[in-house]
């Protein structure tokens, strides 16, 4: 019988090398938080295509990382936790109006903490590095053709993640290299957004020895937990350079 869905087709042909059938379980799939898929009776506590003033916001986060560590092996790890950011007032991009399509929105990450389990690595915890400039920038997407303005915006999140790996007995990070995750969004806060890396990053211990590699990272933004309007939000120069 001919497969009727893409998933059936994938199951029929077999997965890519080094992938077992368990990966077909939806628990390991990154396709966007359930709130992104709507459903009867579900109302978003958000407004799409809308700018709002500066705010402190927290939300649930799910992160899936694909990591290899010398001496331990390679695994895909599912992690869950929370994120907090301080979002700045929106500004008009050069030559644009201060509206949804023409605005630039920046935010400073205050905290990102997610944790999960790997049969190979044991308990895994991923956190941000508050001492380094970390944040996100949302900017207008390029117009597909002159005069055709899009409601979609490009989002780049810049982080210096630290990976606490139980079986390794230490924490590894990407050193001075910032990890960039990109996505397309139509609302801020970006509930339902999935951002993904597009390259690998070496992982080092505190002495600068390379112990492994971050092969891929995918982040789902989930439920908005808290929203507090704030004033006098100044973006640090170092952060401005990172998200520029």
């Amino acid at each position, binding site marked *: 019988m001919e497969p009727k869905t893409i*998933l059936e087709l994938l199951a029929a042909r077999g997965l890519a090398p080094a992938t077992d059938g368990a990966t077909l379980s939806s628990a390991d799939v990154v396709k966007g938080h359930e709130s992104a898929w709507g459903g009867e009776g579900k109302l978003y506590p958000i407004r799409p295509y809308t700018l709002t003033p500066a705010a402190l916001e927290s939300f649930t986060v799910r992160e899936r990382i694909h990591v290899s560590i010398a001496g331990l092996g390679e695994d895909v790890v599912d992690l869950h936790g929370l994120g907090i950011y301080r979002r700045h007032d929106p500004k008009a991009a050069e030559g644009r109006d201060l509206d*949804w399509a023409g605005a630039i929105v920046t935010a400073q990450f205050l905290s990102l903490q997610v944790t999960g389990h790997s049969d190979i690595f044991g308990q895994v915890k991923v956190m941000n590095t508050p001492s380094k400039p970390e944040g996100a920038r949302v900017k207008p997407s390029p117009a597909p053709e002159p005069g*055709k303005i899009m409601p979609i915006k490009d989002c780049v999140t810049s982080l210096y993640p630290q990976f606490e790996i139980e079986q390794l007995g230490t924490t590894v990070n990407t050193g001075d290299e910032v990890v960039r995750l990109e996505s397309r969004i*139509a609302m801020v806060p970006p509930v339902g957004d999935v951002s993904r890396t597009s390259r690998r990053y070496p992982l080092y211990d505190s002495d600068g020895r390379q112990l492994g590699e971050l092969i891929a990272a995918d982040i789902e933004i989930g439920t908005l937990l808290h929203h507090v309007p704030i004033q006098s939000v100044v973006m640090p120069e170092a952060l401005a350079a990172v998200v520029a």
Partner: protein
Amino acid sequence: MTTVDAPSSPDVAGLAREFGAAVFPAVSDFLANKRSAEQLRRTWCRYYDEAFQPFDRSLERTWRRVAGSDGGVEPGPPQADPALLQPLRLFPVSVAHNNLDRLVEVLAVELGDRTADAGSVPERIVDLAHVVDALNRLMTSLTTRP
């Protein structure tokens, strides 16, 4: 206003037909190693630009009309409002398309002119299958729902 030349109401049935005609077979070919990631990306971009973007602009215009929004800065915390249920009903179609756009992009960055079997991030191949099926189901459901 930030919209231009969009149709009066979002045509999710038309978008679902285009998705079934263009994206479904392209993803099937990609998974069957008959089409490279870059070829998949080109097909996807054509669909995204020519079919999805007019739908998305129409959805934005509908939202602005119902919510009374001009796209400027609106004070106050975000709140759920039952009056906005109808335009928000179609919004997951937009979110899923934009998330899928990034997924197809990272596959093309990793694989280029190679096919699915050449990849070293197989979990994203599985993501692709799940997202395409879920988006197809979502649009079909929205098309048939009264």
